[in-house]
């Protein structure tokens, strides 16, 4: 290890970094805002995704059988539905069991002892693997023999799917916009440093410094901008995660917010990575452009 070489390199990076503090603060601040918004957005998307996922997991297709269908017919139907790869599970609910479940559900709300006979048909409850397949599976089940009626929460499913779709598109556009903005500001900052150091660069080229040697301090500067900005943002997100989020959850008891998982560490590392990569790429481009011309 040649410590003198390392010390020289680090002093060059430090010289770059401290040459224009105001620009540096601007670049770091932009990255912080970008990562903060990105983190918040991803967190919100994840949370809403969980809520939606919970709801979708609950969606059931109820298939009611005709009155004259026998338990053997029902068994055949169950087997047929189970052979469909889109179907996750099929539960057979005979009319007696259906009544018991209804009694259970309506306990205390309705006096079910008034019911003297069982009005319910035999039924099947289907859960599908992919929420997008709910329509198709329901339609297919409706065409099968011995099926009287198929019911499911059509509106809810459709709205949920549409919301999902819109959210991921808006989110993607939003993220791209943020990343581009941060990259432009970092590359502008680096360009200013490059300009401030143009004499040094000219001399480096004159005495035969290799291209990578000329580039590296600037790349490191961009990397530092990105990383420091991301660290600040992650700290703020951490504060939000452990200080604000529990308060929000406890103030909205009716809303099915769940804890967004304990993998904040991974999430933080990913955000730091995004910051660092944006910094490196932006500075690489702006130095490269200068050295080519």
């Amino acid at each position, binding site marked *: 290890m*040649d*410590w*003198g*070489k390392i010390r*020289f390199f680090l002093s060059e990076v430090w010289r770059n970094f401290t040459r224009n503090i105001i620009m540096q603060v601007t670049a770091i601040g932009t990255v912080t805002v970008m990562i903060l918004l990105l983190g918040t957005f991803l967190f919100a998307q994840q949370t809403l995704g969980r809520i939606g996922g919970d709801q979708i997991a609950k969606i059931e297709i109820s298939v009611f059988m005709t009155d004259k269908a026998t338990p053997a017919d029902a068994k055949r139907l169950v087997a047929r539905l189970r052979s469909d790869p889109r179907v996750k599970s099929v539960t057979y609910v005979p009319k007696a069991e259906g009544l018991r479940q209804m009694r259970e559900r309506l306990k205390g709300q309705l006096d079910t002892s008034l019911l003297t006979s069982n009005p319910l048909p035999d039924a099947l409850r289907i859960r599908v693997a992919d929420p997008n397949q709910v329509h198709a599976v329901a339609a297919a089940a409706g065409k099968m023999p011995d099926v009287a009626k198929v019911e499911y929460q059509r509106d809810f499913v459709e709205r949920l799917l549409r919301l999902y779709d819109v959210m991921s598109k808006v989110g993607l556009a939003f993220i791209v916009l943020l990343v581009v903005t941060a990259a432009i500001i970092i590359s502008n900052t680096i360009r200013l440093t490059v300009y401030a150091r143009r*004499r*040094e660069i*000219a*001399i*480096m*080229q*004159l*005495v*035969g*410094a*290799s*291209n990578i*040697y*000329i580039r590296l301090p600037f790349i490191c500067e961009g990397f530092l901008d990105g990383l420091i900005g991301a660290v600040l943002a992650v700290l703020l997100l951490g504060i939000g995660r452990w200080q604000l989020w529990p308060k929000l959850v406890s103030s909205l008891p009716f809303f099915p917010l769940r804890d967004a998982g304990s993998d904040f560490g991974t999430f933080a590392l990913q955000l730091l990575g995004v910051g660092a990569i944006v910094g490196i790429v932006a500075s690489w481009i702006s130095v490269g452009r200068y050295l080519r011309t």
Partner: protein
Amino acid sequence: MISLREVSLVYPNGTRALDGIDLEIAKGSFVFLVGHSGTGKSSLLRLLYREQKPSSGLVVVDGVEIGKLKRSKIPELRRKVGVVFQDFKLLLDKTIWENVAFALQVTGARTRDVMRQVPRVLDLVGLAHKSRVFPNELSGGEQQRAAIARALVNNPKILLCDEPTGNLDPVNTNEVVDLLHRINLKGTTVVVATHNALVVDRMRRRVIRLEHGKVLADDERGLYHGIESDIRPDGEDLALAARVRNGLGQDPILSE
């Protein structure tokens, strides 16, 4: 060491800076390039360290063909060719020691080599005692000697000087020229583009005279005024002063 064959250089704006130059410069020689401003002296030097590519013809420097040199190979050439300019091009926020060391450090030299080489060249140019001083605290001559130290620290085979004494008074000029002479005696090929008649006449070395991008004369032990006056009415007062002082040649402008 340096060889040019039918070399022409045309700038994008159409200016023909060099026009069919044929030249051989032997290893270890000392050569002056003289001529009016704009006759292609600097352009010729720029070809030799691949700041410019020739438009046509063959330029070979220490076995490297400049026109075919890949961009990635330029640094390798530059380490073999030291360059010194009229305006020194020192970094004002670094000390003399740091300026000289910089040239080694940015080529990835080991610290051990930096610690050995920098004092050696500073000693050679006579600035060992000023190594901790910033360029602005030095005289022009000292700054130029620091720049020469920087150009030499990589142990180049060739030293190119573009008007090295252009900003210096006669005393400092002599110091710098003596230094270049000593460097040449140690085996480095030295090429000096200059307007300074005093310098050229004192050294009595090979003089290559350029005019309109062509070699007008090439004298083995030449004088500055081998052929005609180089003094234009609007400048070159240093050369003029020197000539007047030394009574060298009749100046057509003065005698008018």
